[in-house]
């Protein structure tokens, strides 16, 4: 290990100061708000004046509110759809990228990754153009291939809108997980594949029985990142639908924003924020348990 000794007391103090000052700042900006939000979730507070302690009554009210369950359901649906869509498609492509027949690999990698660096808000607006019912690209395309019966009011139809808005989110982040999984696959020693080939493993079998178990841990990380990350979905939905029609595409983060800044109910806003946090932690714990167990079984 490349470690150095501290020369004297003075240097030790200097090092402590240089590390602790930014660290305390970090704690103050990132961790302290977590604590205050737990506190405010237990109070009734309008943003000004005294916060009035009310115990768990905000949580009780929230659990009795139908809208809360609706937006929770929306958020969980998006989280599930994005996990299956993003990580699933990314895994599939990462497998395909190992095939020798595939041409232009570098091009595909660069192009599929590009949406990752775009601003989510820009992605949302661009897709709003794609979905627009009058001059949208999607409907224009359907008209061109003669499937006018498939044309929909994509962003105004309550029954499909949640699925419709999940597509741009999936689209944007396939590249990220693809690149992560590709690097995990390329870290597998080449001999493993050679042995398998000698034993007669073919393309698909090789992927399922050799590559998949060997990238299992990376896959777990991807799923946790993706499922947890989608819990806080906000930008895309603001640009695409702003939660509409009604609350059909509203997420928990938007709901928290609405309570705090539109209704001026800071206590409730904090309660929803804490709920997001708890849900995200529960999901990552759930993924750990589910995927960890299977790993041991093998």
């Amino acid at each position, binding site marked *: 290990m490349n470690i*150095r000794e501290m020369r004297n007391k003075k*240097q030790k103090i200097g090092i402590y100061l240089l*590390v602790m000052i930014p660290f305390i700042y970090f704690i103050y900006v990132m961790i302290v708000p977590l604590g205050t939000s737990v506190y405010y979730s237990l109070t009734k507070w309008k943003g000004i004046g005294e916060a009035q302690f009310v115990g768990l009554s905000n949580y009780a009210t929230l659990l009795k509110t139908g809208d809360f369950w609706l937006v929770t359901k929306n958020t969980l649906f998006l989280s599930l759809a994005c996990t299956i869509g993003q990580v699933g498609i990314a895994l599939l492509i990462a497998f395909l990228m190992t095939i020798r027949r595939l041409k232009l690999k570098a091009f595909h990698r660069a192009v599929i990754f590009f949406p990752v660096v775009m*601003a989510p808000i820009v992605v949302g607006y661009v897709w709003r153009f794609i979905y627009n019912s009058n*001059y949208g690209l999607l409907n*224009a395309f359907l008209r061109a291939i003669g499937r006018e019966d498939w044309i929909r009011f994509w962003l105004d139809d309550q029954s499909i809108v949640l699925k419709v808005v999940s597509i741009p989110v999936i689209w944007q982040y396939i590249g990220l997980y693809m*690149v992560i999984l590709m690097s995990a696959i390329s870290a597998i020693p080449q001999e493993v594949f050679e042995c398998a080939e000698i034993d007669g493993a073919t393309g698909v079998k090789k992927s399922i029985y050799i590559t998949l178990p060997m990238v299992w841990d990376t896959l777990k990380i991807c799923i946790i990142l993706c499922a947890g990350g989608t819990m806080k979905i906000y930008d895309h939905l603001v640009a695409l639908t702003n939660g509409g029609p009604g609350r059909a595409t509203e997420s928990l983060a938007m709901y928290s*924003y609405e309570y705090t800044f539109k209704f001026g109910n800071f206590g409730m806003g904090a309660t929803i924020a804490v709920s997001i946090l708890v849900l995200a932690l529960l999901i990552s714990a759930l993924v750990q348990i589910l995927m960890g167990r299977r790993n041991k079984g093998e």
Partner: protein
Amino acid sequence: MNKIKPDKIKRYAANFIVNVPIMILSLTCIFPVVWLLYSSLKTDVEFNRSPVSLPTQIHWDNYIEAFHKASFGTFTFNSFFNSVASLILVLVISFVMGYLLSRYRFKGRNLIYGALMAAMMIPIYALLVPVFIQEKQLGILNTRFSLVPIYVAMELPTAVFLIDSYIKGISVDMEDAASIDGASLPRIMFTIIMPICKPILSTIVILTFMHVWNEFAFAQVLISKEALKTIPIGLTYFTTQYSTSYTLLLAALAMATIPVIVIYLFFYNKIMEGMMAGAIKG
């Protein structure tokens, strides 16, 4: 290899099955961006006639109009200010922290390192309301310095992690020799190690710039003053104010995206490397 015909057909079919779906996906990834760029050069009339067709003639007016109408210049300046201020701070702080955490072992070192990494798991948007309350109490809401502290804290863990793992790979011999020659710790840090760390520092610069440039939620919550708004917020303003002129909005979207495209084209490998390391460490 094989001259039998069915085999050849099979090979072509396999090539087709492997290449075509990925090609389609690639095209769907690139097309919306290309479409955005060329459509922003059309007139509204042309756009309404056919949203897909190429512009018949290049029409820069949308850009000029968008720039003037919605004080896009101000938004751009604010986005640049936030990005540059954040990245300078992130660079200095994360370098010093990363270096010290990597080179020295002291009480609490593992705790600090662990806490930084664990904080990455916090879904940052759960902090929107709490951070708003905190800034309100501090009285720094709606100022030029409302956003930078948040962005710095957001980017810090990834940056420290990248620097720490990079410095681990550098031998201490040079530093030991310099210190025998009487060089002080700051001097060793900034004149010997910092130049060696250039590749990883530039990765951090690019990542921070992109994240801050694209950030929306905090900017929306913490800033309500017109003169301090950033580009992503400016875009929402466009859709409400000029909802009838689609090409104007497209030009604004293009202006928000062009810097990202340029950086991506130049630093594609660095971005990928940094994002991967940032994502995997959790």
